């Protein structure tokens, strides 16, 4: 009898723990990050500033930090140095930072990044059609795509990625 009660208690506890796990994960998200529904990420095939093709379908097995931006957007300009700051902290085989410039000329993109984020090589969405397909809530926006190619989180607007709470979040992803 005692054994059965103990077993019941253990089962109930285990169930409660399982139920609470997703909310624990959400509770520990830094400000301004939304949990997405895990749907498959839209296609993303673009050339980078060096003319090299990048295809999201070939990027499975690692987390992707897919960031949409434009140099004319104030919050983008403020945020970009924080992305430059985190770039060397992560192995691209675990977390790849993918910048997508929306509808600007290569000259404009090159000139801007050379000053604020010289280590980053963005993809160029020359006519803005890929950005349109991803439907960010605005510029800037950052999607987190899991190693299976599913959309898991969205960073709302500009975020200070190089601060402790965001770095912890990023480190948790790749752990």
């Amino acid at each position, binding site marked *: 009898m005692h054994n059965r009660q103990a077993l019941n208690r253990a089962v109930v506890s285990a169930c409660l723990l399982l139920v609470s796990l997703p909310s624990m994960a959400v509770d520990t998200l830094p400000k*301004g990050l*939304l949990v997405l529904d895990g749907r498959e990420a839209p296609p993303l095939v673009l050339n980078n500033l060096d003319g090299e093709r990048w295809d999201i379908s070939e990027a499975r097995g690692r987390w992707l930090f897919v960031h949409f931006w434009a140099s004319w957007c104030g919050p983008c300009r403020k945020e970009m140095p924080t992305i430059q700051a985190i770039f060397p902290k992560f192995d691209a085989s675990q977390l790849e930072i993918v910048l997508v410039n*929306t*509808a600007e000329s290569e000259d*404009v993109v090159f000139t801007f990044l050379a000053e604020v984020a010289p280590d980053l090589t963005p993809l160029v969405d020359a006519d*803005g059609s890929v950005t349109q397909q991803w439907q960010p809530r*605005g510029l800037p926006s950052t999607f987190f795509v899991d190693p299976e190619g599913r959309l898991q989180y969205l960073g*709302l607007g500009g975020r200070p990625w190089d601060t402790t709470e965001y770095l912890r979040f990023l480190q948790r992803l790749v752990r």
Partner: protein
Amino acid sequence: MIKQLVTGTLGSLPILAALFLTPCYAQQAPRPVPSGPWYEDDAVFIRIVQRTPEQLNAFYQGREFNQAAIDQILDTCFVTPIIHNKRFDVLWLELDNWQFSRGAQQIPRIERDYWPAKWEQSGLSQAHRSTFGWTLMPEVRDLRLDESVGGSVVIPRQSRPFTLTMNFHSGADKQGPLKTIVFKDLECIIDKP
């Protein structure tokens, strides 16, 4: 400098609102005081940026828009609010719930579908159309806690001051308090000689 009269009300608390919130001048904010009209309370921060035609011209020239397209833009009046949701789980930006007016006269908004024909006329490239689209305020946005949004809302050019009344539903199901912010005496800024 024009001191801007700004009113904030919570729809479900009209008496309290009448007692404490209307009308009021914008309070001193802890952040640097914006140069244009602004409003802040514990729930939202809103400021309105207005560019002169010269500034708009420079912005779009810098983005390599052709002059014919820029001239189309300069024929109108851009009002650019920046909104930060400080408290609500969801604050609903819905431009259809905003009114531009002068006295009893409503001033219609120039909506997104006005522009494609103008861009055809002026031969604006797809990339520039995309850029322009991102500079406009979204028609609808479920602004989450600590989320900001900014963008231009366009009206026909006005020679006299006007009022912008912003109504926001709150809560994921829009059943929370209705928040109303009124900016009076806004103007379509012109270049100074």
